[in-house]
């Protein structure tokens, strides 16, 4: 049988060998955390604690400031020591609440709702909002927003994203293997909230054990289907996943809910399950710490706000010089200037590259070879957008697809002239967004 996929795309080496077989291990509770106020798409959270306040593990320390926003919780118990700028997971710095732990890890009170499936929908949504859950695949869109579609847009299908098409990362893979049952509960909760009839779990073909596991769990679930997807980047991009699984196309510039679909990451589904059943806020997640310089690559269950340096130390440190440190995967992740930054809700991986792999190549002239055109999953003309941006031709840039681009990086990956297409496109997006104002 031919595996489902989308048109275009690339096939980078998957490099999952480092950590795919490593079971999820709990990382030690950090001495100090920095919880960023902006770990998501939308307006930053507003602190509700002051320097000197004592906080418990799981206590809400910052509030959402609107519909598209998120609340934040302390991931350790201790004292608030500063609310200041701190290096973040995108390679820059932003406001964060810094907490020094008391070593006791005293939790807020959790519940264990036996009949969590029968809770009123409003209560379910409230618990998701209170838990501060955003999409855990990387983009960090507040989950509650996705679960509140307008009344005139009925949702019939929920797709769980277990594709994990970024090279190196194995956190979703391990989560499916070890917490498959909980993920399935999460999916059912999402389907219930949206009153969607069909559930799908999309997994790339390089994770046969996870596919088998989820198939086994859904054997008696006639309306939930596990979809095996071809190994191809960016298979896990929302629009590509929806197309591969359902053959429906999200309109350009539109949202999946317009075609009756909602996509959630498997990690998000797990967090939703924990939030609704235990009222547990999102204060920890699975992060893959990997790459050839890491002594013992692992999948860690770590607290949000843990400095990356501590995670690397827990993995035995490094055995060769680090060329680049990436939060997320190598295709769309952010390069970090140092390991001082702290992990956020969207940090699925910390990938260290050696000097040779990290080396930047000199940019040459565009050959018009059209490799970028051939691989673009959104059917754009990347080289044309880039030259339009270079020569400041806004009209041509937009007509070649500037605003459609999701910055997956497939074009820059294949460019023989080493042109950093995504960088130019990003510049264009920023420049012309400013021009519009």
């Amino acid at each position, binding site marked *: 049988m031919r595996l489902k996929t989308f048109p275009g795309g690339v096939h980078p080496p998957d490099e999952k060998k480092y950590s795919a077989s490593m079971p999820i291990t709990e990382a030690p509770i950090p001495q100090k955390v920095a919880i960023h106020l902006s770990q998501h798409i939308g307006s930053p959270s507003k602190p509700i604690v002051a320097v000197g306040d004592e906080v418990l593990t799981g206590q809400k320390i910052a509030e959402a400031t609107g519909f598209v926003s998120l609340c934040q919780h302390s991931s350790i118990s201790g004292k608030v020591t500063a609310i200041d700028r701190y290096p973040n997971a995108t390679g820059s710095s932003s406001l964060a609440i810094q907490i020094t732990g008391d070593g006791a890890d005293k939790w807020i009170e959790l519940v264990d709702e036996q009949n969590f499936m029968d809770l009123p929908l409003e209560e379910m949504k409230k618990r998701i909002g209170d838990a501060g859950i955003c999409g855990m695949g990387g983009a960090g869109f507040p989950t509650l927003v996705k679960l509140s579609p307008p009344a005139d847009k009925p949702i019939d299908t929920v797709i769980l994203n277990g594709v994990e098409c970024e090279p190196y990362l194995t956190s979703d893979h391990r989560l499916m293997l070890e917490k498959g049952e909980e993920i399935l509960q999460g999916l059912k909760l999402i389907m219930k909230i949206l009153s969607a009839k069909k559930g799908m779990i999309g997994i790339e073909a390089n994770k046969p054990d996870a596919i088998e596991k989820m198939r086994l769990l859904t054997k008696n679930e006639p309306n939930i289907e596990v979809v095996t997807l071809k190994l191809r980047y960016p298979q896990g991009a929302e629009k590509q996943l929806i*197309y591969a699984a359902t053959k429906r196309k999200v309109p350009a510039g539109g949202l999946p809910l317009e075609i009756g679909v909602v996509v959630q990451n498997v990690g998000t589904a797990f967090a939703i399950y924990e939030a609704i059943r235990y009222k547990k806020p999102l204060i920890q997640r699975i992060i893959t710490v990997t790459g050839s310089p890491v002594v013992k690559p692992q999948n860690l269950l770590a607290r949000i706000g843990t400095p990356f340096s501590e995670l690397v130390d827990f993995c035995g440190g490094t055995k060769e010089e680090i060329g680049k*440190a990436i939060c997320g995967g190598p295709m769309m992740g952010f390069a970090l*200037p140092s390991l001082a930054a702290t992990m956020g809700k969207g940090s699925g991986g910390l990938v260290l590259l050696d000097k040779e792999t990290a080396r930047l190549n000199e940019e040459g002239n565009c050959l018009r070879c059209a490799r970028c055109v051939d691989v673009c999953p959104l059917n754009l003309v990347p080289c044309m957008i880039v030259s339009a941006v270079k020569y400041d031709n806004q009209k041509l840039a937009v007509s070649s697809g500037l605003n459609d681009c999701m910055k997956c990086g497939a074009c820059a990956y294949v460019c023989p002239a080493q042109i950093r297409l995504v960088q130019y496109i990003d510049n264009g997006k920023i420049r012309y967004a400013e021009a519009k104002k």
Partner: protein
Amino acid sequence: MQDKYIVSPAPHFHDKTTTKNVMWNVVLALIPALIFAVYYWGIKSLLLTLLGAVSAMVTEALIQKLRKVPITVSDGSAFLTGMLLAYNINAGAPWWIPVLGAAFAIAIGKQVFGGLGNNPVNPALLGRAFLMASWPTIMTAGWAKPKGGILSGITDPNVIAVNLQSLSPKAYDLVTGATPLKVAQTLRDSSFVSSLSANAGQGVEVANRIFTNLTDLSALKNLFWGNIGGCLGEVSVFAILLGAAYLLYKNIIEWRIPLFYIGTVFVLSFFLAPLKGSGFSPLLPFFHIFSGGLMLGAFFMATDYTTTPITKSGRIIFAIGCGILTVVIRLYGGYPEGVCYSILFMNVLTPLIDKFTMPKAFGRVKK
């Protein structure tokens, strides 16, 4: 934490393909043809090729020095242009022909437009057009005889040695002195045909006989393996296909352009090529796709990245256009061969083709 790592925008991974290895791989793919050329026409083939390549590299380096831009001759693109230019001349040409041609190709065909990636037409073909216009006799006569064969590739001894010589010395000269395509073109000229013999009817008969022999299986075999007269790169279909297979396998060239180009020539020549009175021959389309520069052009020239459309449908339109023009020039034009000018012409149309074949973005509905 003093560590400072490299910070750059995503993606942080890159495919191994670079401009440099694309160019040198194409050079590598052209080597089989060079080996065949040396075998049939002697070591001079190699010398001419090297002269072309070196002249191209020197010209590029000089101009880049004058322009005060980084010198990039090591990327192999100039070497490739010089090599392709040399493949467009015959082994009998004097040494300065590839030198001048390659220098023109690089200077006027490429560097004046800003170098790699900015040239509107294929520089090697422009260089060839320049040589054709400036020294037409050198470019179209004085063909080097292949080792153990004759220029036209006709092998039937009956036709050549005995009958033709006694029957019509003029026909004998034609068959032994010109490339297969030139013979085919000349035979289409009715005044030539009637001059073949005092008896008009016999002239036509001789012409038909030569034509049949030109396009029969043994002649095709010669075209395939390279026992004919022609330019260096036209030597053998087999050698070109070998290189082309490598490039296709390496994903350096794409199948659309060669397939539609050669396919168009095949189909059109089936209907248009038969000589008056000679009737349809199933082998005739093979004669047209095997002879001249079509194979070299379709796999190595019309697939040039810079001068061909970037859209998939655009490439097909480009290739079909090349095919139609090639057949039209060969059958109705003043030149025996039309590959060079067809590709040049379609190169110029490329921006227009691109403009009208822009793909529709994923999820976008036509307004």
